[in-house]
């Protein structure tokens, strides 16, 4: 991903943006981020997320379904999360880490008590992954160091969080609040932050006073405390807010298509 200069940050007031300006803004800010929902007809909810040609991810959700006795929880929903690589030869340690982090995050965001004794199966399938798309690296002899594995992990986790959010909405699963994650590349560090947009009524484009709630943050590289705080409370939050509006605009159009019928023919 291209490096963003924090000094050049000038995000306009997103609450007063014309509707046409949002896609153009997001494409420049989110480096070719594209997403779509309801791509698999046999699933209860699905989404796809593409970041230029570096990453392609599909998330599918099946459930809430009847749980097996082994996984069943008496008072809440059980989650079965699996992350699959696009190539069978790659090692699964990154996937395990992503699964664990996603579980921690989704347990807090899904309204688990709404679905007691049931199971939600969430599958992530990478079609293209940044850790695999280097031909030379892949074919190099053993013990060759892979420099980009840590940053690609952050990118993969970011994609999984956002894809999960879209797929959960598509599957009509009750959530406690909306959330999304952004990745910010500084000159010497990479930061992944997941924000909670608890008090934000995005469908109506009306906002109330909202606190900045950080659900998850992970940073890699060398950076100062002031840089981190600037990213967490200023740049990252604005970027997350913009992404949230972008997701909302997608769902606004879906709701208009699916649920609002007009006789304008």
């Amino acid at each position, binding site marked *: 991903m291209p490096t963003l200069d924090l000094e050049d940050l000038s995000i306009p007031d997103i609450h007063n943006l014309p509707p046409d300006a949002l896609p153009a803004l997001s494409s420049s800010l989110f480096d070719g981020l594209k997403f779509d929902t309801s*791509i*698999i*007809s*046999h*699933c209860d909810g*699905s989404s796809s997320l593409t970041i230029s*040609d570096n990453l392609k991810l*599909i998330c*599918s959700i*099946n459930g809430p379904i009847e749980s097996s006795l082994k996984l069943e929880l008496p008072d809440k929903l059980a989650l079965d999360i*699996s992350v*699959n690589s*696009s*190539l*069978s*030869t790659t090692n699964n340690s990154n996937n395990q880490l992503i699964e664990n982090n996603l579980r921690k995050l989704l347990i807090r965001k899904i309204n688990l008590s709404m679905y007691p004794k049931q199971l939600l*199966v969430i*599958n992530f*399938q990478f*079609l*293209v992954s940044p850790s*695999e*798309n280097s*031909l*030379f690296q*892949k*074919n*190099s*002899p*053993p*013990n060759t160091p892979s420099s980009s594995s840590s940053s690609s992990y952050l990118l993969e986790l970011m994609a999984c969080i956002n894809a999960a959010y879209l797929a959960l909405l598509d599957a009509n699963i009750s959530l406690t609040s909306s959330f999304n994650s952004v990745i910010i590349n500084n000159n010497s560090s990479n930061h992944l932050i997941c924000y909670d947009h608890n008090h934000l009524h995005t469908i109506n484009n009306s906002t109330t006073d909202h606190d900045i709630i950080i659900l998850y943050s992970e940073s890699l590289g060398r950076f100062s405390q002031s840089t981190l705080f600037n990213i967490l409370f200023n740049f990252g939050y604005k970027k997350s807010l913009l992404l949230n509006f972008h997701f909302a605009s997608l769902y606004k159009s879906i709701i208009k298509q699916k649920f609002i019928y007009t006789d304008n023919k």
Partner: protein
Amino acid sequence: MVKGVVLSRNEQEFLLQLLAQGKRLDGREIEQFRDVEIKLGEEYGYVDVKLGRSRVVVRISSEIVKPFEDRPFEGIFNINIELNSNLLLFSSSDNDELLIQRMIEKSIKRSNSLDLESLCIIAGKFCWSIKADLHFIEFDGNFIDISNLAVIVGLLHFKLNNVTINNNQNASGGSNNDQQYANLIIHPINEIDPISLSILHIPISITFSFYTSTSSGGDTGDNDKDNDKDQSVICLLDASLKEEMLRQSFLIITMNKNKEVCQILKNGGLPIDALTILNCCNRAVKIVDELTEKIKSTLKEDQLRRLENVPLDELRAENARQTNEL
């Protein structure tokens, strides 16, 4: 079978009656193949194939390994299919998975479509191992045809890194394995152009589904006793998911453009006339021709797109000769 797809008895009977009348649910003709959409990715070996609503993504990857001891002059080709751990919840046993894997192996590997000897780097020491990972994204029937098509397109699209063998064995230190690897120089794709795989022919699988229908001679209902009920066999091409659930038998023919049959598999208990199989072969030839042309044109378009930004004139070794007319 995919989760949540259940046919009621009424639906089954309706579908069979429709087929007996020569009609299909999606409005296609009995012998009509659905439109195939092939998308090639930016990375070599990434292919996204859609057949109607069925969708398969294939990733081809390669690595350098030691060849099998009994086949020191050959490379390795593996297919990896995981239906159960994928995006769709399959409730079937491993039979489907195994069938698809066997079919691709028979069509591509055993018909010598992929020249395994060309994958050998140093006999008995190093060879390329090619792996095809299939991801099933959407299922609406005919998985075998689409999987086979996607794998062969992936192999045609995939390119291997150029490898040179360093004959100056001056590598000192390290283990024996490191020394062996030190003799190989794997060139990145921006240094030396990668090499296409040696594909000798393009095998394409076509599946025919068979149904029996009890068709009566005249109008149904009034004179049931007088009607002579015949059991006629309906042969259907490119069955959809619902049609697949009802079929009594199926025939998979893999052919190439040279009208060579690479493999035939007939599954199911329904006996099929030998002439019907010959007719199926004749029908398959036309479809194979069309699909082969489509594959070739798609690959050519991709190649031209990649060459758009390459200054080919500057890369030419010879200069344009200017004749001085004195």
